[in-house]
């Protein structure tokens, strides 16, 4: 039997507008409970929603970036349900006529490309936050819940993919690319941990091409948990199928600490939201000129930048992918390239040592203590053989910790390599005089002796001797050739 994993994603991204979707309350994160509410987002009788134009514009930008068609006339619907996270008892969303449809986003998987169809991108409002108070702290067994409506009404773009994803790796790669796309567009904070970017998944396992039972997975709050949850669920379903057991269509909750998914009871027992057109809001008919203007003004997107980095700078696939996966990192690299140093060397430093230091210190690249110009300086020092590659690592760390420029660190610490042959000759002569035994070994062709003699030269110069010059001098003097 042949198994095939089928995954589709449903993603919600909070849009970084100033105000909420349908009222003038602040859409910012945090603040005391219910400090950002008004009669509209509290659903008071008689209050009327008015659509935030920026939220529509941002959603259209996203739709265009995902190669979607903008719907000439779309409408809002009420999604009705009884749950206290929405004081109106409905959420304003879009239903059968969404803002846009039929796009795609292609995730690069190194040796192949996974083209993922985008079913639709629509706009809706976020719900409030419930805190369940009780013994377990979880929803089941809670004694009561506290409702905070600061988040209620924040604009959300919902992105629904076709079931085109075939593995947990592809799901993660797609999500990372989508996150980067949102970031490049500058329309969302994209913080999965803070909940401004959320992802649910539908996963099933097809047997010999026959579709399996679809399970919905919720509560994946990081790229890592998305990957782990889908890997776990894929394994669970395959195992059940192998054992000849059945699977039920259900919603499961990912428990990150336990590393497992558990069945979850749904918000509304019968998934019947009784959608109907929102009578308080009129249809959206975007002016084609508006859409064209947005399309023309889209920034360079992650995939385009990825391909440009490979072509223009000759970067390897994995490094280009890593650098363009975060806009600020790619910006940093391009500013460093402006110093005139080699792009490949700069990229290696950024993807290697610098990224490791940033991770370790939990500092975002935007606040990197080593400026792009500083990194250019470091690479120049290595290329001009002022310092060795090994020393450069130490200089970079020092620059990272102190914020000083690499040139200044080299000057202050007297780290410049001794590449001057006359200066080194004095040292080499001393070493030969002090180690007659090893010098004789070298004369008789013992390889080991050269290493020892080099070590002595390095010791005397405190590691500053240029290795090539020192080795050449030793060979000239003891073997008579280079």
């Amino acid at each position, binding site marked *: 039997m042949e198994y095939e994993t089928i995954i589709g994603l449903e993603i919600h991204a909070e849009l970084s507008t100033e105000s909420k979707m349908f009222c003038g309350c602040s859409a910012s994160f945090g603040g005391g409970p219910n400090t950002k509410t008004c009669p509209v987002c509290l659903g008071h009788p008689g209050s009327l929603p008015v659509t*935030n134009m920026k939220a529509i514009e941002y959603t259209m930008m996203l739709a265009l970036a995902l190669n979607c068609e903008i719907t000439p006339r779309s409408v809002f619907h009420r999604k009705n349900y009884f749950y206290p996270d929405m004081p109106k008892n409905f959420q304003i969303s879009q239903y059968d006529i969404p803002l846009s449809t039929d796009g795609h986003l292609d995730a690069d998987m190194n040796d192949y490309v996974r083209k993922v169809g985008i079913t639709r991108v629509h706009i809706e409002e976020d719900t409030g936050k419930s805190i369940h108070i009780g013994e377990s702290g979880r929803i089941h067994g*809670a004694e009561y819940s506290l409702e905070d409506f600061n988040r209620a009404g924040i604009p959300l773009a919902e992105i629904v993919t076709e079931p085109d994803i075939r593995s947990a790796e592809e799901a993660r790669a797609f999500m990372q690319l989508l996150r980067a796309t949102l970031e490049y567009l500058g329309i969302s904070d994209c913080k999965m941990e803070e909940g401004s970017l959320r992802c649910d998944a539908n996963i099933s396992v097809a047997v010999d091409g026959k579709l399996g039972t679809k399970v919905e997975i919720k509560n994946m709050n990081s790229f890592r948990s998305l990957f782990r949850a889908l890997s776990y669920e894929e394994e669970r379903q395959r195992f059940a199928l192998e054992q000849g057991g059945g699977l039920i269509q259900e919603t499961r909750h990912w428990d990150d600490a336990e590393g497992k998914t558990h069945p979850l009871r749904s918000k509304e027992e019968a998934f019947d939201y009784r959608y109907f057109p929102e009578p308080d809001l009129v249809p959206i008919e975007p002016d084609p000129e508006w859409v064209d203007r947005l399309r023309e003004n889209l920034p360079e997107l992650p995939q385009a930048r990825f391909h440009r980095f490979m072509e223009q700078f000759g970067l390897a696939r994995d490094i280009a992918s890593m650098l363009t996966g975060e806009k600020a990192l790619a910006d940093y690299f391009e500013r460093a390239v402006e110093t005139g140093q080699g792009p490949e060397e700069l990229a290696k430093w950024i993807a290697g040592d610098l990224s490791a230091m940033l991770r370790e210190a939990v500092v975002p690249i935007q606040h990197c203590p080593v400026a792009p110009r500083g990194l250019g300086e470091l690479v120049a020092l290595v290329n001009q053989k002022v310092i060795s590659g090994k020393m450069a690592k130490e200089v970079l760390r020092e620059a990272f910790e102190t914020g000083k420029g690499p040139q200044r660190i080299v000057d202050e610490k007297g780290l410049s390599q001794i590449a001057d042959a006359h200066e080194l000759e004095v040292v080499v002569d001393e070493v030969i005089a002090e180690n007659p035994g090893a010098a004789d070994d070298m004369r008789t062709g013992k390889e080991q002796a050269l290493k020892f003699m080099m070590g002595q030269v390095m010791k005397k110069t405190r590691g500053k001797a240029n290795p090539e010059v020192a080795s050449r001098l030793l060979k000239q003097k003891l073997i008579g050739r280079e």
Partner: protein
Amino acid sequence: MAISIEDVEHVARLARLKLTEEEKETYRRQLSDVLEHARKISEVDTSDVPPTSHTLPLRNVFREDSLRPSLSVKEATGSAAWAVEGAFKVPRII
């Protein structure tokens, strides 16, 4: 178009309504009549009429993305039956 008692019970559950057996029968009949009326209307040929979701001849009513003052927490939660430390308190959900 006939509505069954089960349909009435389903809709009542979604709307959190508790109905007596007598009421269920009344609504079953009334809802069936409403749907029958709708079926009659749908006999009219509307192939060249776009579906109506709104009756107002308006579109694209937007506002600028600017802040307006929110309520104070006291105003926001003042009329709630049950509130604690700025949050609305609600009975256990599930």
